């Protein structure tokens, strides 16, 4: 034992010696040379851009809880890149996409990011609010601009976030205004709001509170977690409160439960959901018969939309990915690409395709036209959502993707006056 003790001590000594040797080899340099170079066409570049290619990253989810939606968004991104490259690329360069799958887990994304970051100019799709929260500081440190597939206005305090479309709070405001316009809701009414505690639900709730405040309505809040499955008792409670409409900021499975209870309890009030509340798979679920009361408010048009660009994207998707799930993700992915296209074109005109140049180009854009895949986007005031309009869709089993459009790019006056959490002025 004495020997063993001594062995341990010698090992410690050896270790200490080794680390001292290493430290002795240390030096110190203050500055790294700026690796900015002027490439083809006199355009300044740093990371992710060569003379022939522009590389953008996708941090998506094709194995986690949002894999159906995530795969469709990835496909939308790819369709956009194919279209651009077929038309000759941007700035005489073709678009390349580097795809990684984080499975909707923040720890995984945190590891994958440093591997992806040196290869790319920016991120064309960053999916998931936990992932966004974990990478917030990385994006700022590396000045990487990212288009999120997550629509909370709480993330707009990060200048490197390029929001595409409008945010959950504005979806709810517009949706409630639509219901009132259709005569389904009156001033002074009581509405119920079932929401998942977290970024998604909390942001949706802000919208209904704002709208209710403007119209003398009362909001009955019901907080749930994203893994709850049976909302019957909550809907029963809301019926006791005498609600005349229900707002949902939930998962698709929870939406089905709430709608089934809405029908089974004889409540039958109109139900408004945010974009992620609906999944076409619900039409195959036992709750299929009860979905008729659901209105969905979303930035981008539903899969079955007659908006010309949306119809073209839907057609290309069905050709390129036969048998893949049909949902709104395709349009989301495509429009993310379109906005990037505008930013890249602008940066090319400015002769600066560095990461800093992308930021400059982004905030100089005041009217990005996406052929109505989302409303016109204005990036000149950081902190404010770039657009406030939504599409309203209603469940329709006959339509592809399960919903049919009832209002195109609809912006209520209340949505215009709403002040987002990080909006200035």
């Amino acid at each position: 034992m004495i020997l063993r003790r001594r062995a341990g001590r010698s090992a410690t000594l050896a270790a200490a010696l080794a680390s001292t040797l290493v430290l002795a080899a240390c030096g110190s340099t203050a500055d790294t040379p700026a690796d900015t170079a002027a490439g083809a066409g006199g355009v300044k570049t740093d990371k992710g851009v060569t003379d022939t290619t522009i590389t953008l990253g996708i941090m998506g989810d094709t194995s986690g809880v949002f894999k159906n939606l995530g795969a469709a968004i990835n496909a939308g991104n790819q369709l956009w890149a194919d279209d651009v490259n077929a038309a000759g690329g941007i700035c005489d360069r073709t678009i390349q996409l580097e795809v990684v799958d984080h499975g909707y887990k923040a720890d995984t994304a945190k590891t994958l990011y440093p591997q992806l970051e040196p290869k790319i100019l920016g991120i064309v799709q960053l999916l998931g609010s936990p992932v966004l929260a974990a990478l917030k500081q990385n994006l700022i440190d590396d000045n990487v601009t990212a288009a999120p597939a997550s629509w909370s206005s709480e993330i707009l305090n990060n200048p490197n976030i390029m929001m595409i479309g409008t945010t959950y709070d504005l979806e709810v405001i517009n949706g409630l205004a639509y219901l009132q316009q259709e005569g389904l809701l009156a001033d002074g009414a009581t509405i119920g709001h079932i929401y998942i505690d977290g970024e998604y639900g909390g942001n949706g709730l802000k919208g209904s509170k704002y709208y209710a405040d403007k119209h003398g309505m009362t909001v009955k809040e019901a907080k749930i977690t994203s893994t709850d499955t049976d909302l019957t008792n909550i809907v029963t409670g809301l019926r006791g409160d005498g609600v005349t409409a229900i707002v949902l900021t939930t998962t698709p499975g929870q939406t089905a439960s709430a709608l089934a209870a809405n029908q089974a309890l004889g409540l039958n009030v109109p139900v408004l959901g945010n974009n992620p509340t609906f999944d076409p798979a619900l039409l195959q679920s036992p709750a299929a018969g009860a979905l008729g009361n659901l209105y969905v408010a979303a930035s981008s048009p539903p899969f079955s939309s007659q908006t010309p660009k949306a119809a073209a994207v839907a057609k290309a998707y069905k050709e390129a990915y036969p048998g893949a799930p049909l949902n709104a993700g395709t349009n989301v992915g495509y429009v993310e690409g379109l906005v990037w296209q505008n930013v890249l074109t602008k940066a090319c005109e400015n002769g600066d395709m560095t990461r800093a140049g992308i930021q400059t180009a982004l905030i100089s854009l005041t009217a990005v036209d996406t052929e109505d895949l989302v409303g016109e986007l204005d990036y000149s005031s950081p902190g404010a959502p770039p657009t406030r309009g939504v599409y309203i869709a209603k469940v329709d089993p006959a339509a592809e993707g399960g919903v049919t459009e009832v209002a195109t790019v609809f912006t209520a006056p209340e949505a215009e006056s709403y002040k987002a959490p990080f909006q200035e002025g």
Partner: protein
Amino acid sequence: MSEVVSEKAGSPPAAPPAQPRAAGARPRRNRIKIAATAVLVLFLVLLPILVGSEVAYLKVAQYILIGAVGGIGLTLLVGQAGQLSLAHPFFLLVGAVSYAVLAGDPEESDDLVGLGLPPLLALVGAIVICGLIGLAFAPVAGRLRGIYLGVASLSLVFLGLWLGQSLEAFTGGTSSGRTPPTFELFGFPFSNAEPSPTLFGVAIEKQQRLWYLFLVLAAISYLLARGAVDSRIGRSWRAVRDNEAAATAMGVNVTRVKAGAFVISSAFAGLAGVMTALWLDLVKPDENEFTGSYSLTVSIAFLAIVIIGGLGSVPGAVVGAAVVFGLQQFFLLGANEFGWFADAEFGGLNAVVLSAFVYGAAVVLVVLFEPGGAAAVGRRLVARLSPSDIPSAPRGGRSTPGSEPERNDDDPTA
């Protein structure tokens, strides 16, 4: 404590005396051991240079160290003291939040509580707070055992979920969470501050600095745990684990020892929590109990670390952490680097699915064929190196379900 007692520590009273050691074998093994330790330490210290600009691999290595620190804490509790606990993620959460609150800048936001203490003090404070909360749970731990204690400790995970969502002034809420303050040691920040020193041409930036910080924290944890296992504390844990009545008869205060084990294990988890916060640059309570950094999934992952490593073995916990915390991340990086699973666009086999299978299979295989875990495998390898040195018959003791007579307690060389 005399050397004789420490040699026989924890052996059941009826165990035969250790066989006389063959002269000459010992010094040879010492040299091998010293050389192996030096090589390992050199490798770990030089890792940032070896990975160079591939910082992602350094990130995985940091993550493994988090698992190692937490796993060591749990293996002491489950393997050495015989108390099953699934509450580890709760203490991780408490540690992370405590660090953010203690070190947080009071001016940062009106909605967040921050005390503005120096980060080192906050780190120690977070560990102490976790230990105290572990002590508060000790009366429960003292009354229950086995699976009942496991289920009772599970309640803490749910409590953590609820508290994390409710106490937004501390946790930042589930929406955005809060950013933990940068760790600093005597004015040296663990961030990308200029000028950054270089080591063989590799700049020691934030991730490299964090690696060294984690390495030091993990090394301290490891040495403390080994010290505890080898000393009187470890012997009293094992005595209580094997037979409470016998332990009482030998003068061990059972209640106090059980409480002490819980406190120490919680403190390790608290340190792992602080490391998690620094690793993620984020303190954010989970949105539900099944997914997230402090969820039931993490409870199971830590249990898997302990089982794969071998119950009660400190080095085993480190190996277990490498398997459970490292494998998935490593697969993911490889998947992108070399284009594995490129066809898995709409479902199918991908890195996440594969790594879940691998570590699930590892747990099953360990329980079926090697209940002593990685520790037992390591011991066998060492025995092969110097056959005369290790008693051929296993010395009895506790193991994973399946009760293979292997033990991981007394021989820290395993």
